């Protein structure tokens, strides 16, 4: 599944970049995230509970910052597993705009969902995923614009 979008954040570009590269801060905006563990500068792990319709699963997700060009562009790869389900994703984001803000973030994500979640929740995945992505960016923008 392909997702993409653009978010305007009323904050300086380096603050946006710093927020997005901080697993603890950006992780706090991920829906259902229960814990974040930083392995090293490129790798971190998250534990998140995701529900689609009547199915919910607790995912263990390994994330890797595969590419980063500060403060413009990053590629993040994620591989998550839950009992009977799995998710593999590659997310691209590009920041642009004047250094003092507002910052424009163009993002895209290629998400593959496998197993029970795909099989049983197929008709609801796209809507749920869109909602969850929307919530995540709302959270990021709100926190940054509030000075977080």
């Amino acid at each position, binding site marked *: 599944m392909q997702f993409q979008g653009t978010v305007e954040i009323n904050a300086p570009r380096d603050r946006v970049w710093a927020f997005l590269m901080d697993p603890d801060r950006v992780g706090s905006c991920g829906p259902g995230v229960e814990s974040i563990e930083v392995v090293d500068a490129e790798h971190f792990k998250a534990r998140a509970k995701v529900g689609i319709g009547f199915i919910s699963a607790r995912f*263990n997700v390994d994330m890797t910052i595969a590419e980063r060009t500060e403060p413009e562009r990053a590629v993040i790869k994620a591989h998550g*597993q*839950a*009992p*009977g*389900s*799995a998710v*593999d994703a590659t997310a691209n984001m590009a920041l642009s705009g004047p250094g003092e803000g507002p910052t424009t973030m163009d993002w895209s994500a290629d998400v*593959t*969902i*496998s*197993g*029970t*979640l*795909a*099989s*049983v929740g*197929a*008709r609801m995945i796209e809507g749920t995923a869109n909602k969850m992505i929307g919530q995540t960016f709302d959270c990021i923008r709100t926190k940054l614009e509030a000075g977080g």
Partner: protein
Amino acid sequence: MTEAQAPTTTAEVAGMGHSMKRKEDPRFIRGQGEYIEDVVLPNMVWMDIVRSPYAHATIKSIDASEALAMPGVLAVITGKDLEKAGLHWMPTLAGDKQMVLPVDTVMYQAQEVAAVIAETRYQAADAIQAVYVDYEPLPVVVDPFKALEPDAPVLRPDRGPEKANNHIWHWESGDRAATDAALAASDRVVPIDVYIPRIHVASIETCGCVADFDPVRGHLDFHVTSQAAHVYRTVISLVSGIPESSIRVKTHDIGGGFGGKVPVYPGYVISIVASLTLGRPVKWIEDRSENLQADSFARDYHVHAELGLQNDGTITGLRVKTLADHGYSDAAADPSKFPAGLFNVITGSYDIPQAFVEVDAAYTNKPPGGVAYRCSFRVTEAVHTIERLVDEAARVVGMDPAAFRMKNFIRKDQFPYHTPTGWDYDSGDYHTALRKALDLIGYDELRKEQAEKRARGELMGIGISSFTEIVGAGPSHTFDIIGIKMFDSAELRVHPTGSAILRLGVQSQGQGHETTFAQIVAEELGIPASKVKVEEGDTDTAPYGLGTYASRSTPVAGAATAVVSRKIREKARHLAAHLLECSADDLEWTNGKWSVRGSPDRFKTIAELAFAAYTNHPQGMEAGLEAVDYYDPPNLTFPFGSYVCVVDIDKGTGQVSVRRFVAVDDCGNIINPMIVDGQIHGGLTMGLAPSLYEEIPYDENGNNLAGTFMDYLLPTALETPAWETAKTITPSPHHPLGAKGVGESATVGAPPAIANAVVDALSHLGVTHMDIPLTPHKVWRVLHEKGVA
């Protein structure tokens, strides 16, 4: 041609032709059937299965430590554990092999990866969530055409370097050169591409088992939902090394089989291993999603067919090329010489001079299969293709589809009829069956109504299907499964007081064997059917048999029952001669008694003779009145029928409603008319299902998108029209009772009638073919493209 032959026995005896109420129903309708779920043994534990989220992936590691620490958990079994005993792969009935549990690679989404055994069902279900499997996804092959491309990933490297591709087998039948020549000499060649989608039998009862190995006696009791208990016992013995005498397979009542309970599933083998390991009974029952996602599928044939025609509508030849998607293993349950089943019966009800059929099978990342879902080995695929194709051919030459069929049917006087692909049809009268169906539905009036509606912009269609089935496998010179010849058996013991027990090698899954087979004994011996107990499904007591599928019970075990009854009748004749002090040659058999020819008042009833067999048999004669018969049919039987269906299509939504459906069936002589009608009603509903609702689609990553009854749609009573059934009777000339078998006719015959009706409703818009299922969305899309909706 009568509606039903008149019974020759009284209602009390209830031989053939009596609609005796089913003897098994009192326990079913009171909820007192005994299904696998009802088997509860002392000290029994539960198994649940960890399944793969990926359709193709490497297993990097399996961490079961958290699961093993959970309350009640006794063991976790993985492929590596089975590998030590050489049990990680098992043979399939089709001569391929499939994984019991994978050692390093998973091949389809929902494949078994590990098993957890715990004290309770809930503990096992909780613990599978705590088995952590680390996967590395691999490229997925979903499309069987892409699977055969040179650069496709090789899914089964275990087959060795000489088979470094995804091609499983090629099979062909008929004369290629003669067919090519016949088509080349035809005025026209009409092609069609038909996809018969992957579907599931979706029986009410899912699969399950209780494996009960007693380490003290060295004995395995295996309770299982199987359509073929004896074959299971032999396979288990061959794979495990346990002597067959120390294995008892017991089936209990079965809540629907339809072919899905023929294969041996990995869960069965793991349960046996778990019981051998723990020395306790182990129960495993799959849930609905596991059943839909992992059990053997049916169909999944991509067919390209071409029909040669003269301008006057005479068929000259048929050429068929097919690709079969078998998933990652060929786990079909076809007779071993027939990897594509009896698909080459595709010439159907038509007198086609030349035919050539070829089938290639491919591996993909899907569950292994496929089974024949309520059809005799791929006959549904064959009938759907030919019945769609003759409709299209009629359209091309400008003939009415009924008239086109009448012109090309095999005539009654051509039977026995040898087909160009090698079958010998036993008997048939296709013209009469179609005429009867057309009259019952009022065909000519419907065509007028259709024309009027079309003028008003309404969408109405009429569809015909005139199918020929091929059932009753089979003659042992041609048919075997893993080398075991496809005979079947009956053992009959008549007790001193005149009642009897009949044991069979076949297996009821709801068909009413306890009634039907008792009625055969009643017909042949005059023992009231109510006094004949029928027992199946316990390998310790039943004679060896191949089981029930492909409508083979009445053609094969029914014949065995007739023959074994006649053996007993013959022994009773000698008892009667002794009691009546006459020569056996002077006796004649009428209505359950042997009487002296010319002196009808001097007779002995079967009850008197049974008593004498134990109390007053002549010196030198063996006591008792029992016999066994292993029946090897001389040929298959060929039931047939003509179905006519009327559909209305909603222009706004694309929804298809079946307004009327007339089914004229000919299954030869009928044993219990009520049971035959019940079989036809069920079969028609199971033919409606794939026509309008059922399909298991996969996404590009190999995820099964119909894993629950939310997405895998079954018709309920609300969607099912009022079926109108009728019969013609053309007895089988070689079956002892003239019977042919009926269990699958309607499931085979109904889908093309519905598909033809939908195409007919849209034909004036230029629609020439649509693949099933004809869902509202699919029909609406066509209407939208044509500017109607």
